[in-house]
């Protein structure tokens, strides 16, 4: 069973909850799909058995020797990445989308493309199973593609090691990498927090998972910071037909656990938070809502 844990936005405690689930269960394959800012590896310090590079995109580069500064390429680039400068025509590395058009039209063959292959995909073992995670080099696009690779790898690990449960810690937001993280999973868990923006982000996340028709559950984290708002969120969920499966109180021990590189279930297994999470996880695994 593949379970994706997402949130409309970062900072809701999604990774801490994923970490707790990952250490509660039978051995699992833990997948960090937040390839922009993967950080579950900090808690779990996995053994890297495999490291693969991933070409996230390409950038155009001008060969000064061949360029005549005719400026033709400037008018063709739809991303305004090419401009005149005192040193001659230049391409902005940050603005270039890698579309190849300038290379094709330059009459002097002065442009070539170079690969960005700084992104990585890691596979290894951690204390409760296998772990797969990606790391996108800064400024790279194609995070959706990297997420797909990470998930493919996770499925192979699941087969090879006989670990049936795959936990996917998804990226924040509602863009392409999130869609890549939830397509084809069995369940989505949205983590939210009791604030106006929390509700707003939840709505957007629920729209995305709803549009895929995946069974979706909601966890309200730090619920006691604003009980009234938590109630509002719960009502909203009920109207949408979404089950709120847990209200987790704010607990500084979660941060303490993290500072000590542990999940809350490892750090304080008897705390209220850990107990709620244990029950919630059981419910998720057994399909109860």
């Amino acid at each position, binding site marked *: 069973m593949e379970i994706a844990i997402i949130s409309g936005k970062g900072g809701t405690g999604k990774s801490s909850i994923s970490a707790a689930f990952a250490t509660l269960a039978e051995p699992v394959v833990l997948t960090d799909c937040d390839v922009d800012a993967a950080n579950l590896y900090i808690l779990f310090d996995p053994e890297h058995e495999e490291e693969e590079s991933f070409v996230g995109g390409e950038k155009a580069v001008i060969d000064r020797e061949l360029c005549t500064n005719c400026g033709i390429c400037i008018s063709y680039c739809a991303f305004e990445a090419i401009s005149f400068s005192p040193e001659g025509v230049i391409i902005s590395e*940050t603005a270039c989308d890698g579309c*190849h058009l300038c290379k094709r039209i330059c009459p002097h063959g002065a442009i070539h493309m170079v690969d960005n292959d700084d992104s990585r995909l890691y596979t290894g073992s951690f204390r409760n199973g296998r772990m797969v995670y990606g790391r996108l080099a*800064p400024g790279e696009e194609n995070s959706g593609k990297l997420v797909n690779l990470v998930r493919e790898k996770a499925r192979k690990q699941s087969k090879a090691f006989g670990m049936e449960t795959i936990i996917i810690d998804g990226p924040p937001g509602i863009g392409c990498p999130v869609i890549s993280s939830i397509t084809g999973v069995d369940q989505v868990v949205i983590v939210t927090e009791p*604030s106006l923006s929390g509700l707003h982000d939840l709505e957007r996340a629920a729209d995305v998972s709803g549009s895929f028709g995946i069974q979706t559950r909601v966890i309200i984290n730090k619920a006691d910071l604003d009980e009234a708002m938590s109630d509002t969120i719960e009502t909203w969920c009920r109207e949408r037909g979404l089950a709120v499966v847990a209200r987790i109180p704010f607990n500084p021990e979660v941060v303490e656990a993290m500072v000590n590189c542990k999940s809350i279930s490892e750090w304080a297994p008897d705390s209220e938070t850990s107990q709620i999470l244990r029950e919630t996880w059981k419910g998720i695994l057994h399909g109860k809502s």
Partner: protein
Amino acid sequence: MTDHKPLKIAIASGKGGTGKTLVATNLFHTLISNDIKTSLVDCDAEAPNAKLFFEGKLEKSFAVTQQVPVIDENLCTYCGKCYEYCHYNAIFILPPARVIKVIEDLCHGCGACTVACKFGAITEKPMPLGEVRRYALEGSQSLVESCMKTGVFSPVAVIKAGIKEAGNGQTVIMDAPPGTSCPFIQTVDRADFVVLVTEPTPFGLSDLRQSVETLKRMKKPCGVIVNRTGLGNHALYDFLEQEDIPLLMEIPFERNIAHTYAQGRKLKDLDPAWETRFLNLFEKIILENGNSHHKR
């Protein structure tokens, strides 16, 4: 207040939820209530919510579009040149069956296929990517919101349009999108100074390292605000010292602060001293920005 030229300040963080919007909205509020002409641009186009903190009248809104190709099947010879030119696999072609299609979701609007077609079979039409909204607040201040349509490939074009809408004549605060990928880069690329908001935890430090590395490569000056001090450990401060990055402000972890923010209110409602703190922050940013020592 120090004399200064209009400054573009990006408020960013490696990851969402570190308090970036808290800082952006409170700084903005402080500046406008002190008559410093400022615009706030919400560049978190995937989930904009700075507007929740202000009362404002919608003054203007416009769609941000991208050009996508339209293929005239009567003119098409199925030569496949456009397919060859499209680097994003957005054109689907089956010459024997005389089928050609544009997959709009994959199209980046680069225009290569239009250049490729020697038979005049391709024209372009605008496709909506999202919307930019400008809200008028008190005085001549404004809040600009970039909002991406669900399912669109990348928010970058909508973000750029939002920043452009804010103009150049005054101080601009940009509430940057999370992460260090394209949307983040496109936002901070347009800033004079970047404020990174982080937390003193291992996750916070890991995200901060990545952001700092990126900003160094881009040669952007930056400073750090540590949020939720008191939770977590000291490793973050050691990192700042070691990297010679100015610590601009600290915000303690207090239930009250979280609660005030969650309700869409400002910190000065909690304690008027916050207004002075945010003014000091602004002074520090101006100073640091003029301090070439920190220009990286």
